[in-house]
């Protein structure tokens, strides 16, 4: 059936009255199909966020020895002021900024290079190498982190063993090194995934354009840098935004490495600080304030990044 016929069939509009009656029935059916999702979404996404905001502007004080119940009072932005002034939270945020500034460009650069090589005529055994790069993504994140945590542990780790034998630095869990050991875990896990997204975007490019450039005498490198990279920019922006979000909510990797070294503190990342506030100090109001602040920062950074990326394109 042609598009024209479809449009004609889809919009037979007789008298207004029957149309309205039909629409309302259609509305009812549509809403009925949507209802389960909307209800769950409201209950487990919208209301929790609202409740977290409510918690963040209140403070609960246990009266007496904690037996006499507690009193909750509205404190406005007090909790947020505490978040901003908390040196532990500040250190965690700065740490994640440093982490993101180094790890995200490194990982995406590597993923882009791999994708470009897979898209060129240079790569052999493509299928095997792609599966290899994708395997870490199939390993559950927590298990990947457990795996690497043992690979950092002297005695068990063959990596540490080899480095020690070669008299090379091997203190993966040292106070400074541990941040980059954690960065290595996320790089290991996510490079293949990002490569796949960029590679899919490359594969979708019009081949004639690339052929034309090759016929005009452009080298493989020139085609890659001047034609392919600018054209897959949306995919790069997408992977960058997801990576920024991922960095700001980093939790399981540092938490798991923390089991093996005191160099990862309880408030090492912002989410860990929120977790510590809720469970280590039993201060739900403060935990909510950290979570809300982090949500705002995450959205602001993602939005700002997308705006900058769009401006650069024009």
């Amino acid at each position, binding site marked *: 059936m042609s598009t024209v016929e479809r449009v004609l069939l889809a919009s037979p509009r007789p008298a207004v009255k029957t149309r309205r009656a039909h629409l309302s029935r259609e509305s009812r059916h549509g809403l009925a199909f949507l209802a389960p999702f909307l209800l769950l979404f409201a209950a487990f996404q919208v209301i929790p966020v609202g409740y977290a905001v409510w918690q963040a502007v209140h403070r609960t004080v246990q009266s007496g020895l904690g037996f006499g119940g507690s009193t909750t009072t509205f404190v406005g932005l007090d909790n947020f002021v505490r978040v901003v002034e908390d040196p532990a939270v500040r250190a965690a945020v700065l740490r994640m900024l440093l982490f993101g500034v180094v790890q995200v460009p490194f990982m995406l650069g590597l993923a882009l290079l791999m994708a470009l*090589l897979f898209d060129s005529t240079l790569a052999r055994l493509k299928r095997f190498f792609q599966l290899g790069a994708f395997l870490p993504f*199939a390993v559950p*994140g927590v298990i990947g982190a457990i795996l690497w945590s043992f690979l950092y542990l002297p005695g068990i780790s063959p990596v540490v063993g080899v480095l020690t034998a070669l008299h090379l630095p091997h203190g993966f869990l040292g106070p400074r090194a541990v941040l980059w050991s954690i960065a290595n875990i996320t790089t290991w896990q996510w490079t293949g995934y990002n490569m796949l997204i960029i590679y899919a975007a490359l594969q979708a490019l019009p081949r004639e354009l690339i052929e034309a450039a090759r016929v005009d005498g452009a080298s493989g490198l020139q085609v890659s840098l001047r034609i392919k990279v600018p054209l897959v920019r949306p995919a790069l922006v997408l992977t960058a935004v997801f990576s920024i979000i991922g960095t700001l909510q980093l939790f399981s990797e540092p938490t798991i490495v923390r089991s093996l070294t005191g160099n990862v503190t309880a408030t090492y990342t912002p989410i860990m600080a929120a977790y510590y506030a809720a469970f280590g100090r039993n201060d739900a109001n403060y935990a909510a304030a950290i979570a809300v602040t982090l949500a705002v920062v995450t959205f602001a950074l993602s939005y700002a990044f997308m705006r900058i990326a769009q401006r650069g394109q024009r």
Partner: protein
Amino acid sequence: MTSSGAVQRRNGSPAVTAQALTLAFFLALTAYFLVPVYWLVVAATKTTADLTATNGLWFAHVNFGQTLRDLFHYDDALFSRWLLNSFGYAGLGALGGTLVSAMAGYALAKYRFPGREAAFALVLGGVLMPPTLLALPLFLLESKLSLTNTYWGVLLPSLITPFGVYLARVYAAISVPDELLEAGRVDGAGELRIFTTIVLRIMSPALVTIFLFQFVAIWNNFFLPLVVLNDRNLWPVTLGLYAWQGKAILFPDVVRIVLAGALVATLPLVVVFFSMQRYLRSGLTAGGVKA
């Protein structure tokens, strides 16, 4: 393909050098990606003594059978329970989530109703909401509702997958023809019957993709069960292994058990990933989502 091949042949040796460099680059990278997993396989077969005393990258006395037995008996035989819990959370959550998403996506694609655009905007906002960030607010609410420390506390939030709704909407809009729905209505079939007999069947490729993504996401979930579940009997396998890993420093014999457990807990996912690659790829490239 042909013309670029010709260019390369004309260039001769530089192209060969570039190919060799590329090969070396990919070999090194693949070693980086694969060696940790290979080490896991090797290390899980060793005795505690061999773990530190023998070459980490090669097999010693294979003790895997004993370690597997120990894995399933250690710590009140919790491991099988955790594994079962993970299958429960991921299987039921993904099944329910897929159905809920299919209905919502179909409604958004094929019905006109007030608030449709707003609902879709809400879905897109939900896609961007990082799950880790949501877990703490969820915990605060669930502890008010006494949902913490119950299966429901983990299962119910797992039923929401805004990405699944998005995928279902796109797929329904493209693949479900309006004429077919009209024909069904003319034949007197109810809306629900049309959905269950016609629409679900047509949407099945997208549904498989949504199911797989949700299964993997729930299987990998760590933060939500960590904050919601206190009772070890309710834990999924990721949380259980994390707890055991924490003991490894004090009890070296636990290391081999954690490694074997890690291997066992990874296998279902690796099987899913590599047998269902086609579906996962279509989902990944449809917009990209972090599991």
